[in-house]
């Protein structure tokens, strides 16, 4: 069970009250995250562990960007497991993906 909530603190700090800059960052996040999520699901369907680990690795910075520090560790551990052909942690990671997806729909 994930106990933290995503936020835009990092993006706000980066944009420094420049609304256009903030909107650009949010737009890119909203566009790119679903694409990466789909790539992850495709790799999952193929049980391609190498690709899965790469997919999770690619998503990790976005988890950080959204202020999800504990979840970043969860993703990190999951990536490590995937590199060892082990799916342990996929349920928590799935919950994380859903949490982020839901959040992105609200911004």
């Amino acid at each position, binding site marked *: 069970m994930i106990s933290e909530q995503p936020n835009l603190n990092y993006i706000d*700090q980066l*944009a420094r009250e420049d609304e256009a*800059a903030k909107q650009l960052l949010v737009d*890119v996040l909203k566009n*790119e995250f679903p694409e990466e999520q789909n790539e992850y699901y495709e790799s999952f369907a193929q049980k391609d562990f190498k690709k899965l680990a790469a997919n999770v*690795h*690619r998503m990790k*910075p976005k988890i950080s960007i959204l202020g999800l520090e504990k979840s970043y560790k969860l993703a990190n551990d999951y990536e490590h497991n995937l590199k060892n052909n082990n799916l342990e942690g996929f349920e928590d990671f799935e919950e994380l993906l859903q949490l982020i997806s839901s959040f992105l729909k609200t911004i």
Partner: protein
Amino acid sequence: MNCILIDDEKMARTIVQTLCNSFDDLTVVEEFSSAIQAIKFLNEHEVDLIFLDIHMPDFSGLDFIKSLKNPPKIILTTSDPQFAIEAFEYECVIDYLLKPIQLPRFEKAIAKVQNSGSKKPKIKEAKSEKEPSIQNDFYVNIDRRLIKIDLASIYLIEAKGDYIHIKTEDKNYVVHSTLKKIEDKLPSSLFLKVHRSFIINVKKIIDIEDNSVLIKKDVVPVSRSNRPELMKRLDLL
């Protein structure tokens, strides 16, 4: 300073672009989602600084650095701390930023770049100093006869034991020599050692697949360490 961004993630490039916008003297002239695209750009343009991701599909950031003869200053941007020690072995690497990059840390990295002066990395410079004068042919000793071989006709040289097999457009030669000796006689603009046992004429390549190249009917292995140089040379063709 003119800089380029290389990262397969659009979000990462947008963040660095936003950070760069905080500096009046930092201009992002181009951004690339792959290092191979960037190599083409760098063959025609000079930049002062590269923000470079390490983990990218096909061609990693560190492979990219190895492929550059005279790299500009580089700031690595990655979510993986494990390459830091290796990264700083390259003189061109000024700093190593972990994602998500914070503005104060970014400012520090830019200050490092500004204070690093005109320190020029020396990767591969030694090789260019040894560049032989360009010649069109050379002689090989086969059964006490000196036979002239036109360099441009050679497409493959393979080491086999104490001999090397020189394959040309119309004839093959077996010569008692070493790959190292013949490598020193060949113009590096035309030939490249792609494996410890193989030198190829890069202009004769038909195609490349994973870790091998097809030249005429020969499939030649390409070692991992030589692949970046091969990719770079292809861009020049």
